[in-house]
């Protein structure tokens, strides 16, 4: 039985010719090196993402468009002298470029430029608020069920799947019509529509993260599950959710506009883009260009959001 060959990782005499003076010298140099080189810049994930995003021209242009639209909506009173709700019946259905009305007027003689600007407030709110609320609620549901698994996780996710099974617009119409018309109800309806997909994204990302060993290490240090969710899981699932949610803003605006178009959204005089599209439907043959103005803005905003979201995904995706 020759079990004798012990593998030697280092030769027996390894390091025997090194004197203590050499060690001291090496230690001194190491300390020196460490002292000088303290300022290595940490590569923060968010800083890197920002840098990569800025290199993407399409993304920057899209983000700039979104920003411009938001600013225009916020500063609407400074950009137009007209009241979006008060029409001048004599100036009905002016075409684009007519004096005093750059974008023409609608069927009640209200200035389209003013209505588009003020309507941006409603439309952007209808795009942003449901997305943000759904992202927060969906993340909580998704991370919870992804971490707990078991009965709680299964029940939560199956319920989400049930809602997800409905086509988005159908569910929005169902919720919207049961709540009644109005912007607030539109926002609630769109939020409910968006929670399931966000929860699914969050759950999937959480499942991918929880099996990694650093979660076990966190458990081992005695951390509570809530603390692990907050400090270890959330930072690792957040980018998936942000990318997904940023793509939802455009969809939310379209759904909100569709609800308004169907009469389930904002109440009639309010300058909501979807409702404007509906009320101008009748004048499609007289002033076709004015009629498509609200549609154009819905299109522009949602495309800008989607392109910015794509750029964000790319910026975050490039694996560290």
């Amino acid at each position: 039985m020759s079990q004798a060959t012990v593998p030697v990782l280092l030769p027996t005499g390894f390091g025997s010719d090194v004197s203590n003076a050499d060690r001291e010298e090496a230690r001194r140099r190491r300390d020196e090196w460490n002292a000088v080189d303290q300022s290595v810049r940490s590569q923060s994930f968010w800083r890197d993402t920002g840098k990569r995003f800025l290199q993407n021209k399409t993304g920057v242009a899209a983000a700039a468009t979104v920003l411009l639209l938001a600013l225009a909506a916020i500063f609407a009173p400074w950009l137009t002298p007209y009241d979006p709700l008060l029409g001048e019946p004599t100036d009905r259905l002016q075409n684009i470029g007519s004096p005093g009305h750059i974008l023409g007027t609608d069927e009640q003689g209200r200035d389209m430029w003013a209505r588009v600007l003020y309507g941006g407030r409603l439309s952007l709110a209808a795009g942003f608020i449901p997305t943000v609320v759904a992202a927060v609620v969906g993340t909580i549901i998704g991370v919870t069920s992804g971490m707990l698994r078991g009965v709680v996780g299964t029940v939560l996710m199956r319920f989400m799947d049930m809602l997800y099974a409905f086509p988005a617009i159908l569910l929005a119409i169902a919720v919207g019509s049961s709540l009644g018309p109005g912007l607030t109800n539109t926002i609630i309806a769109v939020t409910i529509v968006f929670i399931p997909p966000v929860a699914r994204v969050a759950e999937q990302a959480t499942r991918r993260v929880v099996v990694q060993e650093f979660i076990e290490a966190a458990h081992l240090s005695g951390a509570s599950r809530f603390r692990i969710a907050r400090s270890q899981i959330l930072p690792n699932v957040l980018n998936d959710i942000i990318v997904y949610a940023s793509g939802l803003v455009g969809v939310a605006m379209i759904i909100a506009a569709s609800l308004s178009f169907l009469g389930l959204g904002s109440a009639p005089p309010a300058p909501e883009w979807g409702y404007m599209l509906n009320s101008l439907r009748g004048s499609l043959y007289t002033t076709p260009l004015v009629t498509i103005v609200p549609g154009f803005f819905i299109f522009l905003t949602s495309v800008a959001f989607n392109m910015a979201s794509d750029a964000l995904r790319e910026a975050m995706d490039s694996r560290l």
Partner: protein
Amino acid sequence: MTEIETTPDLLDAPAAEAARPAATLPERPLMELLDVSKEFSVRSDGKRVQLSAVNGVSLQVREGRTLGIVGESGCGKSTLARIIVGLHQATSGEMIFDNKQISTTKRRPREVVEQMQMVFQDPSSALNPRATIAESVAFPLQVQGRSSKEIAARVKQVIADVGLPANYATSYPHQLSGGQRQRVNIARALALQPRLVVLDEAVSALDKSIQAQVLNLLTDLQREYQLTYVFISHDLNVVEYISDDVAVMYLGQVVERGSAASLYEKPLHPYTQLLLSSIPSMDPADSTRDQPLDDANNKEIPSPINPPSGCRFRTRCPHAMAICAEEAPRPSNQADDHVVACHLYPGSSSTSLPEQDLRSLTAPAL
């Protein structure tokens, strides 16, 4: 004593021996496992069945020493590691840590958690990719509610201890090499100043030269901080290098344990012999160190869902006898704390075997 001091030639050896901390330590175990079992409930062919991952394991580690656990993949090594540190709750069994009895089937009390830490296998998934090295190392300290001043000092200390430059504290894991990440893992495990560190395949993912560095780091740290290690690996050479005692696991059971020297020099259990004979040789003329043992038809490792009756190794054992299928062998002490569970050796069976059978079998022809 006075006589020895006057003779400087004689003094050197015993004094050096006495100076070694290990020699002065009490020989009582720091951690002891008593008959620990773990069953998982799994789905197989649509039915719920019990998978016996760890079955009746009893082990002990002495303070300041290293217990190596070897075995094939799927033999329950990692499950055992997670039971020891409390990540898994065992189905049954007890544990004694530092003379206190701890239930392995319930959640651990906090003060025990702090004293046992684990170094994980995969250096890429063991660190939070969104946290800097310092944040990762500081996390256990924050959880245990240390003051921020204490945390900063401790983080600096352990990062230096594992041989990383201080400026790495602000780096992210992806900026580090595999060996450096494993050093961070070790730093995180040491942050809470544990007494027992479980190393689950801690060097398996590293290449040979980095393995040597990390192993030497581990032994240095052990000497410096009086750490007790449970070192789990499938790499027999690495286990031999680092361990004082070695336990061999097969299909959830410990089949043999003893000091590293005696176990590697004179393996008793047929499975241990099989394992050792499969170590690749350094000589290109030989593919393995010895002729590989006849691995009865080279069978696959049996499923832990439905383990063989009696001795779990009998389906692959070259010495399988009738009794092996009927009765599970009991661990029996053969020599100097060298314990084996095999019917080939006296004390493992309830009935004794004929004398000449034993003689021919205790020295198996290889």
